């Protein structure tokens, strides 16, 4: 049998290729030229410094929501609530960015921390309900999403502004925006947040793989009985896991609040960062490094999609279809493995 490591690399690559081929077939059937379509997609994502900047910017929150969901998954929990955690994190970051007056080296970390804490607190609720009462985290996180949506809207209207739909722009001392990065990318909105996201990925990897905390969290995820037997506090670990997951998602909110937009608006619906994060996590096989790659893939496809209607007359939804197919192929890696093994055998 070929080594596992090779598979973990081959499967996503093959999946992406197959997804793109399927996309080409769909384009062809619908009467579009796949080459035009994909060159538009490429231009839209990597055509020049500007789009590259935007692709990176778009990937940063995906990395973080992906990490959030992956982290929870690794410890046996399903966090559908990243969506709500993003919103409260966003709000908290902007709130601190607006109301506190401090030098940058205090203000910025404080705003980022506020986002993480808010996301963590939001996830604490499903965590504690799961740990203490056995309430299924999936329902509670879904409900918490709606609660976050309505309450953040209300706070923007009633507390952060007087009846407006968008807050003021945060103080420069709390901003992640980088004039330097913008200037080399033709004023894209790329900001320092990507560094935070990559750092967070490193943290996740470190916690999960290298620390006793990760050891306990995974153990509880695999087998609660054995964990209790081994002296671990199962409730504490469930809560901790949700809270850390929530903090990652909260940070994704900070990307938007402190980086991309510098403010927060009343929204009529979800940002989808949290839901897309599920796909990112799963594409990345719930590992930190996998999530980073998946987020970039996701970011590039979504960013490039914007160019498809103008560049080739193809509806952007085609990209959603392609992403969905890629996810299917990754999910069905069993069959891909099977084919690869077959292939190898024949080759011998």
């Amino acid at each position, binding site marked *: 049998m070929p080594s596992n490591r090779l598979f973990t690399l081959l499967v996503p690559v093959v999946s992406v290729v197959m997804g793109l081929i399927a996309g080409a077939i769909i384009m062809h059937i619908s009467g579009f030229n796949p080459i035009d379509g994909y060159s538009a997609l490429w231009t839209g994502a990597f055509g020049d410094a500007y789009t590259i900047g935007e692709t990176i910017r778009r990937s940063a929150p995906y990395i973080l929501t992906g990490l959030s969901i992956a982290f929870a998954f690794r410890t046996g929990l399903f966090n559908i609530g990243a969506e709500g955690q993003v919103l409260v994190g966003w709000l908290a970051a902007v709130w601190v960015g607006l109301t506190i007056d401090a030098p940058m080296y205090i203000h910025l970390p404080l705003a980022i921390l506020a986002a993480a804490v808010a996301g963590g607190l939001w996830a604490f609720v499903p965590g504690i309900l799961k740990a203490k009462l056995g309430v299924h985290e*999936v*329902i509670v996180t879904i*409900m918490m999403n*709606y609660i976050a949506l309505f309450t953040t809207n209300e706070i923007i209207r009633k507390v952060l502004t007087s009846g407006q739909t968008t807050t003021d722009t945060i103080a420069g001392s709390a901003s992640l925006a980088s004039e330097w990065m913008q200037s080399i990318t033709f004023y894209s909105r790329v900001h320092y947040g990507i560094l935070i996201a990559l750092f967070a990925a490193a943290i996740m990897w470190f916690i999960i793989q290298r620390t006793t905390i990760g050891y306990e969290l995974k153990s509880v995820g695999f087998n609660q009985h054995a964990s209790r037997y081994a002296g671990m506090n199962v409730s504490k670990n469930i809560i901790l896991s949700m809270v850390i997951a929530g903090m990652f998602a909260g940070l994704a909110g900070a990307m938007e609040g402190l980086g991309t937009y510098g403010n927060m608006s009343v929204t009529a*619906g979800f940002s989808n960062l949290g839901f897309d994060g599920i796909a990112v996590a799963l594409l990345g096989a719930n590992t930190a490094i996998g999530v980073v790659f998946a987020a970039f893939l996701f970011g590039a496809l979504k960013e490039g999609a914007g160019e498809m209607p103008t560049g080739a007359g193809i509806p952007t939804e085609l990209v959603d*279809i392609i992403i969905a197919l890629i*996810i299917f192929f990754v*999910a069905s890696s*069993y069959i891909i493995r099977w084919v690869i093994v077959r292939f190898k055998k024949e080759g011998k």
Partner: protein
Amino acid sequence: MIEILQSVIPTALFYSAPLILTALGGVFSERSGVVNIGLEGLMVMGAFLGIVFNLTFSDVLGAWTPWISILVAMVVSAIFSIIHAVASVSFHASQVVSGVAINMLALGIGVYLTKQWYGKGQTDMVDQPFYTTNIPLLSDIPVLGSIFFQGIYITSYLAIILAFVAWFVLYKTPFGLRLRAVGEHPMAADTNGINVSRMRYIAVILSGALGGLGGSVFALTIASNFSHSTIVGQGFMALAAVIFGKWHPLGAMGAALFFGFAQSLSVIGSSIPLLQDVPQVFLLIAPYVLTILALAGFIGRADAPRANGEPYIKGSR
């Protein structure tokens, strides 16, 4: 009080019906051991198909259009759900992953085809939606008649009846016993000569049919057209209803009715004297907070079917 019930219950019923139907699909799928986060996508498919069929054939089919529309939506969504079955049953895919893909795929296909066929992001409104009716005889019952049988969509009753049918099928027939066995202990079922894969395929396809039904009923009783925002979160609420209802058809129905009731109350709240001065945001979040409280307070722990989410691979432990 009766007045409040008169306005709450019929509205709760129409709100709940699509959730009930979809949740029933979820119950079948998860009872067989296949996690189905794809309910949202299945609803999208159903809504899309229901609307498109209705728009296309309303001239030909007349008053029968909505019924045939939901039937078609049901059948095609059932076929669509085979993708989930193939991935998660035959290819041993992670069922969560496959479900997420179903959600993205359905929305992608729905909107893509809408743009292809109609040249715009949303369809027109249908001419032949469902309308409410009074149920003959029953609606004349004093008090109860006006609460339960006036101004009701037949589809709401269909949903409730189907919940009982689902209960009957799952708990009274050999098919149901086998399906549940497959979700609890597939290997035991296998050694008893039950074809695990086949049962799971059937269950997933049933969830596709019911999800499609739920989506099309939503479209034809509430939304009237299809766009990217026709189904936004209802599938996840249906999933919540499945778990809230402890994977039991009647429980899921109860949970869906609870959601409808809570939503209806939150809207009506502003015209109930007692609640008039409550800031609107509290009414808005009330349904969701109530759900959490109900779960924490007296529903508590719910155990999923033991083998839920685990691909069955013959010959492994």
